[in-house]
């Protein structure tokens, strides 16, 4: 791409073209990021409203859809408050690593076979490393505010994110083992469009790895069963207690941005990413060069959004764990099981070099059964609530 660009502008030096290109991509990614984080916060509030038999924001714009814009502008207008006793430099610095940690991961997320910021050959390693930046910001925020609640929040986030990074990385290793590459595009290309060709169903150990990945990713994103760093009822607002206005908005953004990263990683590593069936591809290619990519992007978004919505629903359903339970889950269950799944996958690949189709279908159908039960249960609950909870007293 860069070569083509430098051909377009022959008078410019190569480094300048590269810099401009980087800038354009960065702006695009950031725009996408904020355009995701804003509306998803509105969506989350609407979904939360539905779950709680409320309505949720519906006054600002049609159905409240620009609520996030009002929130953003308002926070921008608020007084920028730095506590007197805070460590001022660190306090100002803290939101940026958090924001950066999440946005940097977007660079290697493959939206389609072409649309990717940079297909690094160490992509997965890069994502894990960039994600690790978040914890620096959280600790810095917790420490610099000079408030005991934020300190506790920061310490909690450090403990939580570092311990959950281990099962997270271990579960990613399973994928690396199966695809033989760290590059996300290669990982996706070694999967197929049909569910049985996805890594998640390739063997039972990969399935375990997927579950471990989801749990530890939710923990990395500080979402509800694991939202201890900002536990509202315990630590007031955790690490961001002292933050107001724009600086708070950075944390806010990062939280919802994380959501997308989790969903996108799950989709690309385990669920075949942007892979579309050959029939679609043939049909789309016949229409022109753009359409296959549109299909791919849509497929990727679909898979991502399923997990985003699931995580949102989890947040409004589950209570929060305690610190020691959180550690127990990570060290006693997730980490050993992650090791088991690595070894298991390795053995599986030796025993069944071509894969075992029966097991793939078995896993697929058991997953479908779980989803089916979930849907049935949700519908049942909705019916129940409709018949019983819509109780009106006419006084």
């Amino acid at each position, binding site marked *: 791409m860069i070569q083509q660009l430098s051909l377009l502008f022959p008078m410019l030096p190569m480094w300048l073209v590269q810099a401009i290109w980087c800038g354009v991509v960065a702006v695009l990614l950031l725009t996408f990021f904020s355009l995701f984080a804003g509306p998803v916060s509105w969506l989350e509030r609407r979904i939360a409203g539905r779950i709680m038999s409320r309505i949720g924001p519906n006054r600002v714009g049609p159905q409240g859809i620009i609520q996030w814009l009002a929130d953003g502008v308002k926070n921008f207008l608020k007084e920028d408050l730095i506590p007197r006793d805070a460590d001022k430099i660190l306090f100002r610095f803290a939101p940026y690593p958090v924001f950066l940690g999440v946005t940097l991961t977007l660079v290697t997320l493959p939206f389609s076979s072409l649309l990717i910021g940079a297909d690094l050959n160490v992509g997965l390693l890069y994502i894990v490393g960039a994600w690790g930046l978040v914890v620096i910001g959280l600790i810095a925020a917790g420490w610099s505010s000079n408030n005991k609640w934020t300190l506790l929040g920061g310490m909690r986030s450090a403990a939580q994110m570092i311990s959950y990074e281990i099962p997270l990385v271990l579960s990613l290793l399973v994928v690396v083992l199966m695809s033989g590459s760290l590059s996300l595009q290669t990982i996706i290309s070694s999967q197929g469009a049909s569910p049985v060709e996805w890594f998640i169903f390739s063997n039972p150990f990969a399935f375990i790895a997927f579950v471990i990945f989801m749990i530890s990713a939710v923990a990395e994103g500080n979402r509800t069963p694991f939202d201890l760093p900002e536990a509202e*009822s315990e630590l*007031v607002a955790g690490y961001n207690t002292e933050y107001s206005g724009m600086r708070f908005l950075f944390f806010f953004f990062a939280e919802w941005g994380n959501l997308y990263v989790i969903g996108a990683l799950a989709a690309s590593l385990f669920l075949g990413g942007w892979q579309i069936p050959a029939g679609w591809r043939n049909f789309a290619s016949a229409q022109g060069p753009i359409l296959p990519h549109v299909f791919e992007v849509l497929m990727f978004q679909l898979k991502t959004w399923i997990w985003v919505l699931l995580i949102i629903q989890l947040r*409004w359903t589950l*209570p*929060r*764990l*305690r610190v020691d*339970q959180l550690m127990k889950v990570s060290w006693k269950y997730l980490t050993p099981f992650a090791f088991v799944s690595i070894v298991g996958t390795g053995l599986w690949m030796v025993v069944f070099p071509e894969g075992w189709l029966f097991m793939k279908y078995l896993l697929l159908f058991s997953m479908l059964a779980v989803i089916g039960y979930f849907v049935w249960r949700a519908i049942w609950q909705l019916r129940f609530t409709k018949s*019983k909870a819509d109780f009106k*007293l006419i006084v």
Partner: protein
Amino acid sequence: MIRTEEMTISMGPQHPATHGVLRFIVKTDGEVLHEVKPDVGYLHRSMEKIAEKVGYISFQPYTDRIDYVCAMTCNHAYAMAVEKAAGISAPERAEYLRVIASELNRISSHLIMAGVMAMDIGAFTPFIHAIRERETVNDLFEMLCGARLTYNYVRIGGVSFDAPANFKEKCVEFLNHFEPIIDEFNRLISFNKIYVERLANVGVVSREDAIAYNLVGPNLRGSGVRFDVRKDIPYSIYPKIDFNVPVGIGEAGKVGDCYDRYMIRIREMKESCKIVRQALEQMPEGEIMAKVPRKIKPPVTEVYSRCESARGDMGFYLVSDGTDKPYRLKIRTGSFSAMSIVEKIAPGLMIADLVAFISSLDVVAPEVDR
């Protein structure tokens, strides 16, 4: 060499988990509490002095504000104390209406407790669901007396309004609707694995401690003491009604842990539904107000009347000197003693447990401070 240092944190008066304006001065080592000193009095409204100033009848509205979450039983307890002192007895229909109102209010109070408990554990949805159900109870109270929170319904010598014509049907309709809702609530949160793990074996109050620290009501029963003022020192029409007293049995952990105290409230809601059903069935027609003089002047005497509020045994100690104003009125409430046990139980818990422990005690700030 790693050195740890105690950290003193002031939790409250404005803190999401302190249910109003309680304050705890907490000494922690990291997450583990070493010492918790409750600091109350942020809502001390001097009810007892006001009672000495305003007189018997005018004090009735203030009793709503002692325990606003369960105001009917406070009304009832105060009315009982004055009636006992002045020798007034309420008509039977009034007694039935009082019990119906008290039990409905017990339901709404326990709903708040269960919801707030879930919120403190981190689940926000059950709280809103509880609020939703509470609204319907409030609708019933609006039918009964026109108020949603501070009812002033139970008066000295009876109740202020008779039940409207369709009250019984509406009430039964509500109960039919509400009983399955309790099951739904249980499905949503009570038997959730994380929830049970968070509450079981946390903040265990032994039977001896519970009695020595004078815990009352559901907190006492949570520790396995089968004592309910409604059963053991019967008042009003409770002897005529058949109901059970749930007692903590340690179903998830030890007897007297937070989960026991929580489940007792859930079960009590079901028992309250039973009581309301029976009371509605048995309720006779007739007067709702006894003949009460405009100025109540009890003889020189003192009474101590006890009533089972949602937060337990509520006592009014009334000293009268023969005038129309009480000489001394002492309000003994469940939350006050429940707060004093925090100091004993909390060391060794974690911060998250302290939050769970406080909400399992169902402390309401104005009941502590009065």
